[in-house]
């Protein structure tokens, strides 16, 4: 099977990028590997809230719910809304192929 795996990420300037995705990688790692300098200061351990993204509403239900820890960590982010997630806490699977996300304030 050589299905192409990818996500779409809109940067702070509003430009959408199609990024190659790898199963089991966090969305943060996929974004970074794709050449978009997402901050992610703690390295992906849900400890800093500098990888906030907005998940496209059409994808929200397909992604596992955030943990209490992740919801709490979002207290340290800005512009948080019902689509806010930490990119380091979403792990890519085939079911998420074509996922659309947008970088949020404080993530670059």
């Amino acid at each position, binding site marked *: 099977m050589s299905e192409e795996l990818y996500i779409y990420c809109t940067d702070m300037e509003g430009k959408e990028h199609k990024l190659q995705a790898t199963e089991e990688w966090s969305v943060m790692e996929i974004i970074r590997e794709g050449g978009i300098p997402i901050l992610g*200061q*703690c*390295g992906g*351990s849900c*400890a*800093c*809230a*500098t990888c906030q993204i907005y998940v496209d509403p059409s994808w929200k239900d397909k992604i596992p719910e955030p943990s209490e820890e992740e*919801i*709490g960590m*979002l*207290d*340290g*982010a*800005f*512009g*948080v809304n019902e689509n806010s997630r930490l990119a380091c806490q979403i792990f890519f699977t085939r079911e998420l192929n074509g996922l659309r996300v947008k970088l949020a*304030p*404080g993530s670059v």
Partner: protein
Amino acid sequence: MEEGREIKLIETDAIIIGTGPAGLFAVFELGLHDIKCHLVDILDRPGGQCAELYPEKPIYDIPGVPVCTGGELVERLMEQIKPFHPEFHLGQMAEKLEKTPEGKWRVTASGGVIFEAPVVVIAAGGGSFVPKKPPVKDIERFEGKSVFYAVRRKDDFAGKNIVIAGGGDSALDWALNLQPVAGKVTLVHRRDEFRAAPDTVSKMRALVEAGKMDLEIATLAAIEGENGQISKVVLHRDGAELIHLPCDALLAFYGLTMKLGPVAGFDLKFEGDLIAVDPASFETNQPGVFAIGDICTYPGKMKLILSGFHEAALMARKAFGYVHPDRRYRFQYTTSSSNLKSALGVTQTK
């Protein structure tokens, strides 16, 4: 530096900028080479990210330590470097790096201390921890006048109508502390749950219940005012309703973030926000100035605590030549060397 402050000159062997795990372990490695260290850190306690971002989180990849928290790792490192009597200068920003006419390095810190040494080790991780600033328009114009990220003197807020933003311990502690002196305190948080000590949360809830403190579940949308004096905050409530809340001061507590800060102005070779080093010695392009831990880059670099430890060991070997130019380098093991054992304050054991 501010004028009129007393300036203190400290001459030492090595100045370490940053007290995260890499900076702390550098004290150990340099200590084994009879190199005395002074450390500077912007935070008021040692530990860097381990202390600030994940003191309670478990770390599993420290060799020989199956699990310990960020806080425990810092405690253990502090214990391990005790024999070398490192001196800490906390709550200070390393602002300037320059060469002295005698060929040493001079580091100027924000607290009015100037250090001179033949060796400087930059172990500043992701940079300095600074408060997260709400991304609202023109906030810089109000900072230090009516918008603050810390409280210096409670009395400055006496009788004032203050808005405190945030949902953690800092926000709640200050809300409770300032409530008796302030004219009015409004706590603003994005959700009706607080990540603070349960006792603090209960006290806050009681004050709100008693009508002695206001609580708004909303996010900060804008601030208004003139000449640095805030006159109101605009809050965004769920359902797009905007609230205009008059106030005299805004205190924002959204935690800390890392900014490279003054290090960016040091005359060193950078690759982006990272300092390029020689992976054989972790020396920068400036002889005697080293960079270790997350802030350095070289082919194959991994941002792991254990990489910082390795980098500290190789750095110390090269640093030895700068601090003790007249001594011959001798490689020794802590298991067998009586010199090292006496430096560590341990007696000979089998």
